[in-house]
């Protein structure tokens, strides 16, 4: 699996993501600047990391969603390419229309930075094959706008069609609808989630709970 990491101004977790990809994939991801208009040839996976793209002074991710590179990402997705968006990356995917719903300010109106437990809703996707069925794993959160919302028909459809990827297991601190922490696109080739599995891939940093996501992708 050949991975590329998008870099928008204000993205700040690209280094964490590079480390996680390097460890599981065994090679360096390509870094793709937001002003590019095409993705590198034969790229399998586009990763949009966390941060504050364009300062998030407008709605989180709204500016990045209009960047030149996103047209190429939409085309990649339409071809059935894989996309992973974490935190600001998830917000950019919803703002781009590649995933349904939106991420609002956290219910308590404060930035939340702590570990959370996530429940793996299905382990038969390209992102989760290295998790056991029903696995619960730990991941750091670090966001001000992680409160997932969508209209009830959309939420029903996400649940009915098995498109919920992860749910908050210990506590729903940001107020997300139906405890949703991450969702898939209809073809389950696009994943967006708020917490940061890429920050828990090394025992020294407190554990390797997030590593199965990258191992799953590497094996795909």
């Amino acid at each position, binding site marked *: 699996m050949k991975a590329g990491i998008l870099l928008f101004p204000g993205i*700040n977790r690209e280094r964490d993501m590079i480390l996680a990809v390097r460890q599981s994939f065994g090679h360096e991801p390509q870094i793709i600047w937001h002003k590019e208009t095409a993705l590198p040839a034969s790229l399998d996976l586009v990763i949009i990391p966390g941060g504050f793209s364009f300062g*998030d002074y407008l709605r989180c991710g709204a500016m990045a969603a209009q960047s030149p590179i996103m047209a190429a990402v939409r085309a990649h997705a339409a071809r059935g390419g894989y996309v992973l968006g974490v935190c600001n990356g998830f917000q950019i995917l919803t703002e781009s229309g590649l995933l349904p719903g939106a991420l609002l300010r956290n219910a308590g109106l404060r*930035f939340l*930075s702590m570990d959370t437990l996530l429940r793996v809703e299905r382990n038969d996707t390209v992102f989760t094959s290295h998790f056991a069925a029903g696995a619960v794993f730990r991941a750091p959160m670090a966001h001000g706008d992680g409160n997932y919302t969508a209209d009830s028909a959309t939420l029903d459809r996400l649940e009915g069609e098995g498109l919920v990827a992860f749910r908050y297991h210990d506590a729903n601190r940001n107020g997300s609808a139906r405890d949703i922490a991450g969702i898939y696109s209809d073809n389950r080739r696009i994943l967006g989630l708020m917490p940061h599995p890429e920050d828990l891939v090394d025992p020294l*940093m407190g554990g390797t709970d997030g590593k199965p996501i990258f191992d799953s992708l590497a094996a795909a």
Partner: protein
Amino acid sequence: MTPSVAERAKPMVNAELAKSFGLNAEEYGKVLEIMGRTPSLTELGIFSVMWSEHCSYKSSRVWLRELPTKAPWVIHGPGENAGVIDIGEGLAAIFKMESHNHPSFIEPYQGAATGVGGILRDVFTMGARPIANLNALRFGDPALPVTKRVVDGVVRGIGGYGNCVGVPTVGGEVNFHPAYNGNPLVNAMTVGIAAQDKIFLSAAAGIGNPVVYVGSKTGRDGIHGATMASTEFDANSAEKRPTVQVGDPFTEKLLIEACLELMQTDAIVAIQDMGAAGLTSSSVEMAGKGGVGIELVLDDVPQRETGMSAYEMMLSESQERMLLVLKPERAEMARAIIEKWDLDYAIIGHITDTGRIIVKHRGVVEADIPLAPLSDAAPLYRRPTVATPKPAPLGRVDTSAPLGEALLTLIACPDLCSRRWIFDQYDSTVGGQTVKRPAQADAAIVRLEGSKRALAMTTDCTPRYCVADPEAGGAQAIAEAWRNITATGARPLAVTDNMNFGNPEKPEIMGQFAAAISGMAAACKALDFPVVSGNVSLYNETEGRGILPTPAIGAVGVIEDAALAMGIALKPDTDLVLIGATAGHLGRSLYLREICGQEAGAPPPVDLAAERANGDFVRARILAGEVAACHDVSDGGLLVAIAEMALAGETGATLAAQGDAAFWFGEDQARYVLAVSDATALIAAANAAGIHAELIGHARADKKLTLPGGIAISLTQLATAHESFFPNWFAA
């Protein structure tokens, strides 16, 4: 010649105007002498900010010279934008702590946010990628509504800025005391990493080289911020709100990336951030340090507002701006890198051989000042000092409160309770290198990317000790920082100091300052712990009442193998051993204040030889792999330290040692609690080294703390007491 509209609007420059700019009659006399004429408004502005307490250190410099600043591992000590030390593998740690006290009271969110932004720039301007932020915060009485507003704004501001720039906020300290009512302290520290052969300095060179402005546009914000920070507050301080700057962490993030990218080339001759006194201090310092002259053409400065005067542009403290001197043949390549990051780039002048700063605007020379006297003739005061009287000995103390009740009261009080509510709002994991997060160890541990090595970092000061005995308090602040680094297994290397005091024109305040420096210097010498950077914040007074003297210490150490870094979390089936002698010192302790309602007596004495011996012993045991958990004994004493270890490890303990309240809650220094599997061997090794060690208990998986006498407190009860203060305060 008919004066322009702008000319006519300018106030008359005279002694009275100089006074309103913060220059006294004698200082204004010196200005006239240097200039040989009445200065222009812009010139007066430049003199007033360069000679402000904030920029000139005129009251503190004579004392700061007493601090030791050298060691074989010190690469650059005080005098640069930040201190630089050798951390091995060809790498350098670059760090500094700086105050943003005055702005943070007037406008807590922006004051704290721009404090973080400013200290970040001091570090990356030297070529370092920032890898950690820390802070040291002091607030007033929690019972006052204004305190809650200030705490909320400051915490949101620190998080808002640090989270966005993507530098993890990994450590800090918070105290409350009524002496900080109306004068909170916000001290922010940044630590960065650079290759030792890629360190950038600010001394300008190369006659004719372009002077380049990079970053945000200049606006009318923060004019005279440095002067504001050099006076006391009064009832009208809210009127100073327009002197507070507004931060833009997104632009700062771009500035970090753009500067670090440019630093990979050979384009930069010199670089300096525009901090306090903005364009004035950066241009004056760069040219002054290089022994050259500088000519600026302000028409070319990127401006956010129209019609700005030379005076306004030179004095603006708009944030997120840098000044560079470039090699002329690299200027266009540099422009391409800066503009790639969507930042303004403008050549606004050049380096000259005149030894003068010349500022032109709209074809008029607005300032023409010789640089040497501007710095050399800057005022320097050895202000009168009065020694702080030694505190009366502590009388009899009522220690009848039951041990368990006293513990529950202490770990719930604002100065000892969990800081989770605060650090849960700071991104502590971004970067993927945070080995020990807040509250997991006595110092934060952040690994160096691509290395096994990690830095240990802490901030410390105990102002209630300093007010009773500033010399002992100064020494204690250094010793506690050294101890906190040691307790993780890291080797303490160097210190940045942030001296927060009241009005230096009062002899008793200057006496506190001098004594604190003296105590710090002694401790730094004894512990081989030089001061490599720092900041002085004076005039921390409101309505004539000063703060507690607060020499906040930021410290950095290194551990060769991050996997050996020790935390405080207790592990089951270990013995608890206390290292260091206990006399049961209750003077100025939190027990005395929170349980007995007294702030009295002398602070605990600091025995620097014992600090050194005990610390070196503990560090060696940790690095030998003999220790399962380690925590220094500080605020609240031994029983509080054990309770914190139990909570962090979700592991209970049964305490065997017998002692009174003074034993369990005394704040004697140079002590550590170690959890080990073999207490006998540890105690024997300690005794062989002449170090006091005693078995105090045994850790169990039973989730309760069993006190001597058999009374048990469940960890749930302890946790509830420890975790409640902040959430309850902000729920109310």
